């Protein structure tokens, strides 16, 4: 194993991605992801200094829409699909302090 990625890395990434995975799964994913990163190391030695990154296949500019009201969704239909709703709003447990 090349150890590009440790179990601690995977545990940290899982937390960042809000995925509650067991210790056993962390081990398994670490092995698999590390193997992948090993394979992906083929790009490490490419000369990319003067290459422009490509994010969009078809370069468009200034796609805009007029500031005109469109029909809204029906609140009952939307809240009906919600796991928990109250007083016309979505209900969630408290955040435990991670304010933005």
């Amino acid at each position, binding site marked *: 194993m090349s150890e590009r990625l440790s179990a601690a890395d995977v545990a940290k990434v899982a937390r960042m991605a809000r995925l509650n995975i067991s210790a056993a799964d962390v081990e398994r994913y670490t092995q698999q992801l590390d193997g992948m990163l090993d394979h992906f190391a083929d790009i490490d030695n490419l000369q990319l200094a003067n290459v422009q990154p490509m994010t969009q296949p078809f370069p*468009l500019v200034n*796609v805009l829409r007029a500031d005109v009201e469109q029909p809204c*969704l029906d*609140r009952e239909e*939307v809240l009906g699909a919600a796991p928990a709703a109250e007083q016309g709003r*979505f209900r*969630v447990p*408290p955040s435990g302090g991670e304010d933005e």
Partner: protein
Amino acid sequence: MIDNGLPEGWELVVGLEVHVELATKTKLFSGSPNRFGDEPNTNIDPVTLGLPGALPVLNQHAVELAMRIGLALNCTVKPSTFHRKNYFYPDLSKAYQITQYDEPLNVDGFLMLPGGVRIGVERAHMEEDTGKSTHFGGAGGRIHGSEYSLIDFNRAGVPLVEIVSHPDVRTAEQARQYVNELRAILVAVGASDAKMEEGSMRCDANVSVRKYGAELGTRCEIKNVNSVRSLGKAIEYEARRQIDVLETGGTIRQETRHWDETDGRTHTLRAKVDANDYRYFLEPDLVMLAPDAEWVERVRAALPVLPAARRTNLAVLTGAEEDSEAVAVVVERGQDTYIEEVKNSGGDPGRALVWVQQSFAEEGNAPRLPAKDLAALTVLERDGKLTATQAKTVLGDMLEAGGGDPAAIAATKGFEALDTSVIEGFVDEGIAAQPDAWAKYCAGEEKAMGALVGTIMKLSKGKADGKVVTAILQQRRGS
């Protein structure tokens, strides 16, 4: 060295981040209404709710307003891109906010404070607002100790512009002035109603202190400031807090602190386990925004005269100081054009400024009193036919009636300004009646003048012009 209210040798360094809600009809990336105060979750669509399959499309008018803000702040409009700022929070429906990161729309501007201080503006970029969480079950609606939260997405997706200043602010007062001036500009260009109390303008301050000449200190970000007044108080508190820490040998931890209006202090937000890594990357669902030169010029040409220029113009018109309160107040109320009308009707603009500042607080930017009527009043004053006190009474009547002929009103009240020679006579009588006061006044006791003026005014039955009386007394004393 400026008076920043801090112990000697300490310099205050403040940068301000202001978020402004734009006055568009619809949201930044979708067509549901941008409206305050509607029933929760009624202004929603797939994009606002972050439904699977939804895609953003940029609001043209939001771009227009964002450019107005940038150009009014002397920025350069540049080709710009949008990025995703990824984090989890229930009022962020996609778990990422679409914002502008390293290529913002407006860069490198500045704002002049009344009085001439220049505050650099680093950038003014576009981003979307989040929904609103309300916390229940705990004490005081605060998130700590709450049992659950309810989320309303009406505000989610509302267009924002974030205006980031350079850390050029050096006093709490400058910070207040910056925010007030910025607000006036935003309202003048029609970009926002910028009301801090309603949340359409939000202000965060980055505060640090240092000894003059030293390197920049560690800064803390202060949030939850809900008024301009609080902003000043929060900055002052935070500066002193930091100085206390440093002077007792401690170090400042870079953090976000929450201003508490009730106890007048800033508090650390609960420490986070992992500092947020936002994993910014270019938003693949949007394309580059590059307003062409024609569009930029159209926006620039359509900008109204901005508050700073209006203050300059009013000062020139009236002879008042540009940074005087009268000029600031009258421009803020939008009554400077009225004073121009008074001048054009032959009135005295200097006197008009005084009256408008004093008596037109409730009039708004289109005072009911016809400009020609106020003009006539100021002419009577200027020509010495009415004292200031008399003019004030006449003005009161005119305002109540919504107009009137000041000369006629004065006549009905028997007002006439007295001849200077007649006033000289009353001064003689007054000095004779108050020999002690006169002696004290001649000896240099300025306070003694009060008694003299009072007697003289009574003798003249209020018809003597107070300014003329004072001038005569000073002249006779030889000062």
